[in-house]
């Protein structure tokens, strides 16, 4: 048991080294870009990092990050709730999945930028626009993941559970849910990444506060260092979310797949 825990810890640390090496490589390439093209195209990495610390140290900078995170999560959680419940229902009912198809095509086909314009008209410049844009652009992904999960499950296992007269709710939780999750999870992870990108884009065009608004400000001032600092913040937060939230959840729900 202790041996097992130790080896998992070592594995984690080792993969951490890999990630760190990748990050440093990016900074090295960035430095080369700065030396080749000058500070207007790419600011020095150290300068951008210094600006990043300044930005986060400011109360307004920290507030911007919180606001953006709140909007991204609100949109993402709403999309998860609706996407998963409708996906499950559509997976079980043929008629409903046929009915839902055009909606999904429309939601996937309309570019996020068009949704932003529509949302601006509907919700104005407040929280509503970024939240709605995140919601509408991640919803189809999550819906399709849940639908596929229900559709692709092994009917033989359902039959087995039925032959043991396992109650319906237990049949769902213990037999169907793990199969659905293995389809849903990749879609869910993609949607989370997408929600960060979309929220920044929506804020850039619609909001006066948030990371996107900070980027818009930096653009107006032709401040490349601040722009890069905001980009580093967005990417860094995404990495943190992936490491702290997605990977542990993934290990938990898919642990049985990695059993040797």
């Amino acid at each position, binding site marked *: 048991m202790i041996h097992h825990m130790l080896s998992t810890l070592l594995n984690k640390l080792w993969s951490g080294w890999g990630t760190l090496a990748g990050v440093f490589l990016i900074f090295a390439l960035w430095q080369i870009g700065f030396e080749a093209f000058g500070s207007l195209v790419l600011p020095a990495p150290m300068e951008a990092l210094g600006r990043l610390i300044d930005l986060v140290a400011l109360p307004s900078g920290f507030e911007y990050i919180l606001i953006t995170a709140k909007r991204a999560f609100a949109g993402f959680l709403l999309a998860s709730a609706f996407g998963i419940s409708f996906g499950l229902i559509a997976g079980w009912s043929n008629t409903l999945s046929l009915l839902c198809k055009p909606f999904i095509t429309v939601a996937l086909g309309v570019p996020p930028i068009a949704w932003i314009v529509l949302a601006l008209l509907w919700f104005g410049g407040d929280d509503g626009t970024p939240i709605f844009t995140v919601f509408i652009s991640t919803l189809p992904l999550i819906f399709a993941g849940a639908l596929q999960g229900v559709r692709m499950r092994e009917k*033989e296992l359902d039959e*087995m559970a*039925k*032959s*043991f007269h396992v109650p319906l709710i*237990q049949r769902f939780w213990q037999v169907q849910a*793990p199969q659905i999750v293995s389809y849903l999870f990749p879609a869910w992870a993609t949607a989370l990444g997408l929600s960060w990108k979309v929220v920044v884009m929506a804020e850039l065009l619609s909001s006066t506060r948030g990371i996107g608004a900070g980027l818009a400000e930096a653009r107006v001032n032709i401040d490349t260092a601040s722009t890069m600092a905001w980009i580093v913040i967005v990417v860094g937060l995404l990495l943190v979310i992936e490491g702290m939230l997605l990977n542990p959840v993934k290990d938990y729900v898919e642990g*049985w797949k990695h059993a040797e």
Partner: protein
Amino acid sequence: MPNETAPLLSVVPNTSVDPKPSALSVTVKDHRYHPLQQTLAPCTLELAKGEVVSIIGPSGCGKSTFLRIAAGLIEASEGKISNASKRAAILFQEHRLLPWKSLLNNISFGLQGQKLTKFQRMKKAREVAYAMGFSEDDLIKYPSELSGGMRQRGALARAWQLNLICCFWMNHSVRSILVAVVTFIGRCCTRWIRSSALF
């Protein structure tokens, strides 16, 4: 797929001289998956306690469908079943263990349809697993970590613990049944067979 006119499966009724009370009686008058295509022609089967019957036939003739109906997994379009034990244990051709559950949890999963507490389920499953020759280490393994024979044995344990009168061996080749019987079960299984009606 069988064509629509052929009498697809006819099971010879049990015409023993000394009629025992039947443990299982299945009468199928008609069964169709598709309204225009008959899958099963009328057939009946009477089984007494302790009787072992094999259903043999070319592929696609309706053996599995008949067994599904007899086991109560699906309902015949027209016909009736009476099973003395109300329920049936089914051993499928494949093991059908849940890949995300450990062996012990898989075995106790078979008891979920009964009114037992979780503790009782675990206790019973553990007893059966030990009786089947599994070690403590095996119980926490996932099916992917077990050998093919052990998986089959796990599936057998899951069905066996129900102590039902009626057990169906779905679509097993003679070889796979022999392997299962030879590898472990020898004595226990014969005892079981004596008290059960088996396909």
